């Protein structure tokens, strides 16, 4: 459903991503892995509209058949219309707002429509109240799922690290994405939290949302991915199921360095 074709992104003279093509299928977890500096985050930023790719196309197909050319859309539209959500490598929460508020901000566009774009709700008109109740219910659903309900009224910046990661995922899920892009979700988590994350991601996938994942933790990648793409120096060097990728000599070479007989 996400098709990236001949994607090229250059910064000055540096080719961060070169002629990259891959596909992420619906209902699957697709992982993008590779050594540091391989261009993983650049691909992410292109898909989510933070960078505009120099060449190539990124096409997203919704289940209802709608097509989006992501490389032509401004960043906020990609989230609002194409329903691609993302998290960040260095967590970006609204630290001074409560956990609950973080989840409500994520539903901005839905709520905004219900307020008649601000004007009616100031005067207490429109069906804003009902819309807000729906938004609160959705927020509560994700709070329960992420075990954050007890801390709903605490500022997001005061949460422990693992909880902040969970909250960021919950916030991204509140825009009802068809594709969720996670940039190193397991970074800094302890083994138990990592295991919980695995279960959570599988649950999100089974809920009908496809996932695109950058991860360094091979435990996570190999266990939950349906499909893996390996990048090195901005190029795709391998593409396949976890078992295939693990056996690919090119991947081993990229991670461990060239061997004598390779």
């Amino acid at each position: 459903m996400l098709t990236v074709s001949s994607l090229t992104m250059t910064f000055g003279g540096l080719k961060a991503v070169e002629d990259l093509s891959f596909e992420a299928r619906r209902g699957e977890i697709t992982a993008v892995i590779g050594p540091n500096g391989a261009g993983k985050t650049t691909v992410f930023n292109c898909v989510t509209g933070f960078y505009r790719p120099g060449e190539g196309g990124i096409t997203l197909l919704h289940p209802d058949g709608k097509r989006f050319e992501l490389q032509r859309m401004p960043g906020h539209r990609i989230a609002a219309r194409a329903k691609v959500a993302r998290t960040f490598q260095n967590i970006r929460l609204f630290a001074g707002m409560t956990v609950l508020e973080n989840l409500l901000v994520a539903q901005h566009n839905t709520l905004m429509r219900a307020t008649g774009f601000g004007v009616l709700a100031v005067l207490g008109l429109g069906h804003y109240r009902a819309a807000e109740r729906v938004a609160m219910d959705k927020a509560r659903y994700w709070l329960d799922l992420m075990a954050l309900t007890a801390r709903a009224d605490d500022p997001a910046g005061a949460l422990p690290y693992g909880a902040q990661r969970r909250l960021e995922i919950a916030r991204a899920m509140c825009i009802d994405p068809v594709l969720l892009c996670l940039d190193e979700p397991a970074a800094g988590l302890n083994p138990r939290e990592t295991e919980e994350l695995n279960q959570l991601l599988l649950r999100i996938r089974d809920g009908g949302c496809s996932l695109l994942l950058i991860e360094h933790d091979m435990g996570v990648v190999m266990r939950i991915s349906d499909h893996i793409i390996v990048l090195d120096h901005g190029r795709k060097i391998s593409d396949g199921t976890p078992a295939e990728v693990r056996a690919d000599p090119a991947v081993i070479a990229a991670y461990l360095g060239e061997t004598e007989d390779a």
Partner: protein
Amino acid sequence: MKPLRDAFLSALVALGLFAPMVGLVTESTDHGLTLHARPVATAVVVALVFFGRLAMLTWRGRSRRDTVAANRRLAETVTRTGRYIAPVLLLAAVALPFSGSRYYVDLGTLVLTYVMLGWGLNIVVGLAGLLDLGYVAFYAVGAYSYAILATTFDLGFWTCLPLAGVLAALWGVMLGFPVLRLRGDYLAIVTLAFGEIIRIVITNWVSLTNGPNGISGIPRPTLFGLTFSMEGGEGTVSGLLGIEPATIQRVIFLYYIILGLALLTNWVALRLRRLPLGRAWEALREDEVACRSLGINVTNTKLTAFAIGAMFGGFAGAFFATRQAFISPESFTFIESATVLAIVVLGGLGSQLGVALAAVVMVGGLEMLRDLLSTLGEQMNSPFFAGVAGELPLYRMLIFGLALVTMMVLRPRGLISGRTPSASLGPSREIAAELVAEGRG
């Protein structure tokens, strides 16, 4: 002993600085200038520096943990008592004209104008986190819109008020479009320039604005078509009520208009904060990139903040014009923007009550201080104070500046820092100011 030594050194520096600045004074006599020494004044200043430094060091000497905890406790107390302060302030504001004192009502009107401007700017700076140094531009646009519309087309205050607001909002959007891609310092500089541009255009566009001479004869507001004319009789308020016409009636009427306008600003700002738009403003202040990733149109959201802030600036401007009946570019200098911004920062970014208190202190307090100092000066007959007593009122800006610096050292995030969540599952709890972002434009 280290603090003592430190304080002594500070006193030494102060002596070097103030010996020529305070210690020597020139006086023009018949034979030209003569030089006088003022040893007592110098000694007082140096002693102040010595003890001030000592006090500061002792205060800072307490463990940092203590001060943070103390700060939080103070913030909580202030917020808790804030719930009682607000109604008391409101009641006092409503009751003020019953004092019958022209001085207090005039002062109250001035303070309320700044409260309203502060609340308007608070939307832009406090909620959306966009540092706007040219807020006076919208104040000017509002004032001139009303003045020109009223004198050219003979329109009344109540017709022009919304128009002035709309025009100011329009200018807010026009300024916003090109500059909102800028951040932080750059945004501040461009808004500063915008404020100056508006003032210079007003000064030079003589055919429209009458240039530096200003516009006079701006009509006063009416009460349901009734005027506050001094002649009394048919069509005036005093005529209808059958009372003696007096200027104070109009002054009080103006006072209630600005009270109403300020409360409207407050109501809209408070209401918006609990709506998605206000929440998006705050989210923008916290993290713009995250907003974009959640599908929030950053440009539009910033523009609405700018436009709504500008609109209230425009309302306040129209009121200023009708109150003064005369406006000229001199009323819209940078110092106005700076004062309003100082009110917002001092009050605590985003805090409605804090802004109101800061305006009372900064505008009302400064006026009161002037009177207090001149009365005090008159009381000091002792020859010991000779030379100081007379010029005591001149020190008011110095005292005031010192108070501001002390205030910002003690409470760097403003009078009322901390943030009340806009929605909560359980009982809502204050968020400590340390966690809340200040915004980077």
